[in-house]
Structures are given as structure tokens and as C-alpha cells.
């Protein structure tokens, strides 16, 4: 249900703090449970987006790595998808995919494609030439070289792309309610002038982004132990 700006929801609040639309810790404590469901809706949307986006982009990048002529076209297309504002995208897709999570997913996934595609490719391209030469010279086949040497060495760049994609998606997913996918954005929009609401919903989104960012960073440090190793004399 889309709400008109004209219809600001009037909630039944009797307390002075709330009727002034202020920042009211008591109200927050009482109503915190209301934010749980949107939070997880939001989280799942972000998770699905990044997972699907990664699957598509990673595959595209591996293909383009071998067939260089693909790089330009894919970059152009994903670039345009990236440029289209998500709000516009939601409604451009509406006639095709209808209201709901699917529309939001398609729009959000198309946004992250460029980021991940570009970072995977850059990571692979940055593998030193002599490392690849040594690998081939030792008898690794092209596939063995890719999976045992090139992809692991590209991981820092890939994870960086994942971090960027994830944090941006958390932000964009707040607009997903336009497509009917709920989430923390819906909570913000439901009472946009009430400070407590805005701060809690917005704050939760920022926390989610920070937490996910930190998690991916931890994961990155865990699976790339050689980047942590400090050179010793």
C-alpha cells in the first residue's frame, strides 16, 4: 500500500515527547519489537541480492577473463544497469515482474553486477605474470592454474568488491519498499517525521551495513593468511 505524502500517519500517542515527534527512548524501548521483522526482511533481501549478484558476476568475469573481447560489452551493459537509479528501476520493472520481492531483487542485483564483475577481473589481472609463468612451467593446466593460483590471489580484490556491494545494497534496499518488498525503508517511510522512528530504523540500517562489512572483512582476513604475514628480516 503506497502512502501519499499528504497522509502523514497519525499515531495515537499521549505522551508529550511522542506527540512532539521527538526522540523518545521510552517509546523506542516499548516498540523495538516492531523493527525486528523489517530488519530481517531487509537482511534477507541484501543476502539474496549479494549471493545472486556474485554468482552471476563471478561467472561472467571468469568467462571474460579468457575471452577478453567480452569485457567491454559486459562493462557497458552492467554500467548502464548500475547507473539507473533503483527507484526508477523498481517501477520500470513493475509491468514486467509485478510488485514484490522479485522486482526489488532484480533491480538490486543489476546494481551490484558492475561492482563485482569489475573487481573480480581486476583481481585476476593483477596476478603477477611471473607467478603464472612459473605455474604453467611446472605443469599446471589452465584450469588448475586458475583455481589454485589466480583465483586465490585475486581474493583480496574480490572480497573488497563484495564489501562495497554489500554496504551499498543495504543502503539501496531501504528503497525496496517502493517495490513492495518491505524492509527497514518501509518503517522509515511509515512515519517519516517522527524522530525516534527515523533514528531507530535508519540506525539499524547503518548498523547492518557496518556489521556485514566487518564480517566480510574478517572472512577475508581468515581466508587470505598470506596477506597478514609480515615480512621478517
Amino acid at each position, binding site marked *: 500500500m503506497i502512502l501519499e505524502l499528504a497522509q502523514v500517519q497519525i499515531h495515537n500517542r499521549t505522551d508529550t515527547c511522542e506527540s512532539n515527534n521527538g526522540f523518545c527512548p521510552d517509546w523506542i524501548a516499548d516498540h523495538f519489537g516492531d523493527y525486528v521483522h523489517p530488519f530481517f526482511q531487509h537482511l534477507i533481501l541484501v543476502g539474496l541480492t549479494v549471493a545472486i549478484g556474485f554468482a552471476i558476476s563471478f561467472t561472467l568475469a571468469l568467462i571474460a577473463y579468457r575471452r577478453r573481447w567480452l569485457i567491454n560489452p559486459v562493462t557497458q551493459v552492467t554500467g548502464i544497469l548500475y547507473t539507473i537509479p533503483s527507484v526508477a528501476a523498481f517501477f520500470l520493472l513493475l509491468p514486467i515482474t509485478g510488485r514484490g520481492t522479485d522486482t526489488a531483487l532484480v533491480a538490486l542485483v543489476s546494481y551490484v553486477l558492475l561492482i563485482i564483475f569489475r573487481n573480480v577481473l581486476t583481481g585476476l589481472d593483477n596476478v603477477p605474470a611471473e607467478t603464472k609463468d612459473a*605455474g604453467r612451467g611446472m605443469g599446471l593446466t589452465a584450469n588448475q592454474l586458475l583455481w589454485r*593460483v589466480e583465483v*586465490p590471489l585475486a581474493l583480496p580484490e574480490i572480497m573488497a568488491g563484495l564489501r562495497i556491494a554489500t554496504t551499498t545494497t543495504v543502503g539501496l534496499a531501504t528503497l525496496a519498499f517502493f517495490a513492495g518488498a518491505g524492509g527497514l525503508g518501509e518503517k522509515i517511510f511509515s512515519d517519516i517525521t517522527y524522530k525516534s522512528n527515523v533514528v531507530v530504523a535508519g540506525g539499524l540500517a547503518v548498523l547492518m551495513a557496518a556489521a556485514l562489512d566487518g564480517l566480510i572483512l574478517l572472512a577475508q582476513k581468515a581466508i587470505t593468511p598470506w596477506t597478514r604475514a609480515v615480512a621478517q628480516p
Partner: protein
Amino acid sequence: MNSSEPAQHSGPSSRPAAATLEFRRATKLYPGQTEPAVDALSLEVPAGEICVLVGPSGCGKTTAMRMVNRMIDITDGDILLDGQSVKDRRPAELRRDIGYAIQQIGLFPHLSVADNVATVPRLLGWSKDRIRARVDELLELVSLDPHETRDRFPGQLSGGQRQRVGVARALAVDPPLMLMDEPFGAIDPINRERLQNEFLRLQREIRKTIVFVTHDIDEAIKMGDRIAIMQRGGKLEQYSPPAELLMYPANPFVEDFVGADRALKRLALQRVRDVDLWKAPLVRVGEHTTAARAKARDSEVPYPLLIDESGRPLGWLSDRGLAGERVTEELRSRPDPVLELDDVLRDALSDLLAEEAQYGPVVNERGEVVGVLSIEILAHALRSEVPV
């Protein structure tokens, strides 16, 4: 110099340790080029010998080497490994049989030293235990402490250490042939000398067939059993053992490339262990000075050499050290330059000249003094016949 029978190796693999290699009019012509990069190269490398390909940049030496393991395709002619054409084998499978060490080493930064060395054994499906044993064995072979280094990452190693790991990795499955492209090129000159000596010591033990590429004629003379001098356009100008190269260069190009100081270069053919050293008058702190003075008188070296309990040189003793009843640590000068048995005479000479010394103590692998080398001995070596 070296015998050419293949060495017996008691490592975990049971294949013959060294293969023969033959270039049979091997040619590489890149599409669109009129001149070949390698022009009908023909030479034979007996098993267990080091063949050095040397020449100016653009002479095709690296190309020729890379044709052996098919990193570069052969346009015409053939290359035979133990009599079998390399073209008959699948490239990846062929390369697992050939050790490959390049100038920038190319260790895998994301793998530990142990995992780097274990790359090809893993490809071949060796058992975990066999791999672990082999890795430790190899690290010790290249003078690295297995316990300390096996879990380190390449980023934590010095240039010299990385180079050794690269050699260990190339030797992992005990391949019958090794290809080395300027393997010591990225190392600073001081450590390069040490690494060359160590590698030669290693080769005395394992006796592999090696194709070694370098642009440095001095390195070629030092390392090679046979030297192939190549010219731009991929032509072979001369292929002979180093002594023959120095005494009978085939044409003006070779003569020019080898350099005007051929006589001095001959000093590179002999090592300190090959000449008769002076007997060193060795004294320890606390010895009776009368005995010490007697030793000095008997020797051609004018001053006694003070050594520690392990026999390592501390310095040349001054008269004050001999003044009392017992020897005290009163040094006239430091023992530098300290020379090693495996140093080539040319390097020993330059060390002596650098320190402005007439003589220097010579130590063995354990650091114990075994004699004294002097400029006189070197001058004598220069004048005499070069043993082939």
C-alpha cells in the same frame, strides 16, 4: 673435470636421475618475422651436465630454453629428452617431468613454503607423508631449516631465501632435467656468489642435467660444464667446455663476447681448493708464546693467525699479543678477506685486492681455517698451464 655418468639418487623417486637432452636443428620463427628467434640449433647435453646458454639480449637463449618444455612451440626441428621428442608428450605432463626455475622465481605468494615446494608432487598425487618427507629433505638440501621455513610465506622471506625455495620447488619430484633462466639474476652480487657456490655444491651431490640461461659470461664460465654461445638471430656460435672456449674462441664474435681479459678469466676455472695453500700458523688465546713464535717462523705467512675454539679465524696477531708468556688477543688486523674453499680464484683475487691484503685465511664449510691463500699463489696460478 666432471664425469658424465648419471648420478645415483636415493630419493623417494625411482627414475634415473638425469636425462640426456638433444636439440636437433630446433627452430623458432614467429609469424610475421623474417628472421628466426632460434635458428636450427643443434647441440647435445650429456646426462648430469650443466649446459649454459649465453649470449647478448635477443640471441634467443631464453626462447631456446622455453622450447624444451614447450612454453614456446617449436616451429621446425626437434628437441629430444632421453631420445623421445618433447612434441610427443602432452605439455602439462611433460612439464611435470622438468624442473623450472625462472629469474623472478615466481613463488606462489598465497601458499606457504612447504605448499609451494609440494606443488608438483600434489599434482602427481603423492601421499601426504611422502610429500612431507620430501619437502623437509629438499629444504635441507638448499640449506634452509625446514622447521623454521616450511610454514612461512614467500612475502616473509629474503631474496636469497626465496631463490632457494624456487630451486627446491624445481627439484621436488626429482626431475631428470632442469631448466633455469637467470635464476640468480634478481639477487644482489654478494649473495649471488654465495648462491652460485652453493648450487655447484648441490649439483655435485645430485648431478642433474641442467640447461642454464644467463647473459653473464663470467657466470657461464663458472657454472657450466659446456657453454653454448649464441648470437642475435638465434645462431649457435660455439659449443664447448669453458677452458676450450677461453683458449680457442671459434670466431671474433666469441672472442669479443668472452672479453679481452681471457687470461684473467682463466682464474675462474680454478677454485681455492684446487691450488696448494700456504700452511697457516694457527694459535689460540692462552697458548705458550714460544710455540706460537716457532709456528710463525716455520710458515711462509709472516704473522700468526688467531683462531677461536671452533677453529674460526679471529684476526692476525700483533707483536704485543706475543709479548708475554701466553698469547693474548691483541690483533694487528682483522682476518678479512676470509675465503672459502669453493671460491673461484678470480673472486678470491678480487676480494684480496678489495681489502688491500696480501693474503687471507681459507675456511672450509664449517668455518674452520684450513690454510692461507696469498697473492703469490694466485700469480703462480696465472702463469701456469690451465688444467682441463
